[in-house]
């Protein structure tokens, strides 16, 4: 029986972020939260493999207790159970801490064959949690995956890795961790019955009492400011000469070659 674990993060909905034009500070007072869109692909991939091969599907997150609404959201997308690893101090963790907390929980509480993580989180996008978690669990890690299949006979996964220079197809025995790209699937929208059924699924509460020591952060955030996009306001005429000058400047700046 295939035991799948999907990791997800509850992040600020970037559509709700307001920026103060002068100070460039972010106003998050009315911001809502959502499951990081990369992690929706993670959960969908878990659901897809479970639909084909059976087994169990868990959703795991590390978050402050205020993130509780993330559980029904995640469970409405298909997983059988959720692990809610929470503490008020988990509001601002770095990838090193998150992967350590996940590793401790998975090692002590969750039996698994396959762990799926997203390419990066929708907020910090450090792209480190997946590989770091695999390292800490001592299992192989396959990154940049945009197609994933499970070979029941051989008990191995076959993953298509989308690399800069082409595709690489690898097979790997389980247990393993896979980091998936957003183009691996198109997440389904939860049905009404799935939304209503989410509350009936088990949630395992993991807190500091059950966790070991959480390491110190390696990263400190000093300041967050909105990016400013300066436009150059260059006017180009719509004739052949103008088109030539646009193409030339794009080549010069390495946009096209």
């Amino acid at each position, binding site marked *: 029986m295939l035991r799948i674990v999907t990791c997800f993060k509850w992040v600020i909905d970037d559509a709700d972020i307001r920026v103060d034009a002068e100070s460039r500070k972010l106003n998050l007072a009315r911001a809502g939260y959502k499951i990081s869109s990369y992690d929706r692909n993670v959960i969908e991939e878990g659901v897809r493999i479970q639909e084909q091969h059976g087994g169990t599907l868990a959703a795991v997150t590390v978050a402050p207790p205020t993130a509780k609404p993330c559980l029904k*959201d995640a469970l409405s997308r298909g997983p059988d159970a959720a692990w809610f690893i929470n503490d008020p101090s988990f509001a601002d963790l770095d990838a090193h801490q998150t992967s350590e907390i996940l590793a401790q929980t998975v090692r002590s509480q969750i039996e698994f064959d396959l762990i799926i993580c997203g390419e990066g989180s929708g907020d910090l996008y450090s792209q480190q949690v997946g590989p770091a978690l695999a390292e800490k669990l001592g299992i192989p890690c396959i990154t940049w995956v945009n197609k994933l299949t499970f070979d029941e006979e051989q008990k191995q996964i076959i993953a298509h890795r989308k690399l800069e220079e082409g595709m690489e197809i690898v097979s790997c025995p389980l247990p393993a961790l896979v980091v998936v790209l957003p183009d691996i699937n198109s997440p389904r929208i939860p049905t009404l019955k799935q939304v209503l059924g989410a509350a009936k699924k088990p949630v395992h509460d993991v807190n500091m009492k059950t966790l070991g020591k959480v390491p110190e952060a390696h990263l400190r955030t000093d300041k967050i400011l909105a990016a400013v996009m300066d436009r150059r306001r260059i006017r180009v005429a719509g004739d052949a000469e103008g088109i030539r000058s646009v193409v030339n400047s794009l080549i010069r700046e390495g946009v096209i070659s």
Partner: protein
Amino acid sequence: MDFKLSEEHQLIRQSVHEFCDRYVCPIADEVDQEARFPAETMKRLAEQDWMGIPYPVEFGGAGADYLSYVIVVEELSRACAATGFILECHTSLASYPLFKFGTEEQKRQWLTPLCKGEMLGAFALTEPGAGTDAAASSTVAVLDGNQWVLNGSKIFISNSPVAGVIIVFAMTDKSKGTKGISAFIVPAGTPGLNIGKHLNKMGIRGSLTAEVFLQDCRIPKENILGGEGQGFKIAMMTLDAGRVGIAAQAVGIAQAALDESVKYSKERIQFGKPIGTFQAVQWMIADMATDVEASRFLTYHAAWCYDQGMPYSKEAAMAKLFASETASRQTDRAVQVHGGIGYIKGTKVERLYRDAKITEIYEGTSEVMRMVISGNLLR
């Protein structure tokens, strides 16, 4: 007192919003301009369990509350008012009478496929000579052996060209006035049931509306709903509940007008500044937002009363009255904010402006809403 939606209700809103972004918004303009029934969306609505939201799971429904249903209609209408209405008409007007007054067998046979989205439903009450005055109905039903024979004509029957079943109201005893009206379950394809050509509507053009003709249309005796003479009561109770759905549709339309106006006010530059920096526009946006919020609270409150098993007739009428007039008023403001471009087809506010008007008319006009509200206060 709690003004916060439950986690489930928030998730429902999120899922409908996502659904609309993916499937409804991209075709909304085409559905309107070509007056095309969005059949592909209907199949998807069924897959999402949205075709029988407030009805029991045993009859194919989702077993959710009325507020869930209201949220779905609101969000669908925010993207496409026609799509929101097709679902509203199907759920409130066609399915509700079956749910409330149908026998177990009728529910099994008709409510279940409706809730599963295997067929659409329609509701045929209005006649050329009997709009608000339902008692002036001239369609008649006569029992002939084991069959009812229906004769007459209905007008403005939404969903009728695509419905699998129509709830038809007809006089079984003209001398009794409203107490002589009965409701019947008429399956599509019954000989003698003919659907006229599609009416060319001003708004909600993706929803198909037509005349329905009954000429010696014979249906089985057991297809009467709720017993002889119960039709007026069935129609009034159905419309009471339906009004909350129309209020939700109006809230969705008004919200969309606000969304578009806020967006445009930030983008449109005049006199070197976004027009949203001018007080004249700011005030329109402020009024719009306040009206939308008030409409939403009235609508959710009416749905909440329904869910609590409390009387909701007055609350539903207030919600529909205020939300529909808000939709008309604020889509007008939204066109004003947009200026010339708001008058051009293909601009969303132009569509919203036309879509809004009907919410003041169908399932009880604003005038009838005021009668219902004052009647509750003065009797």
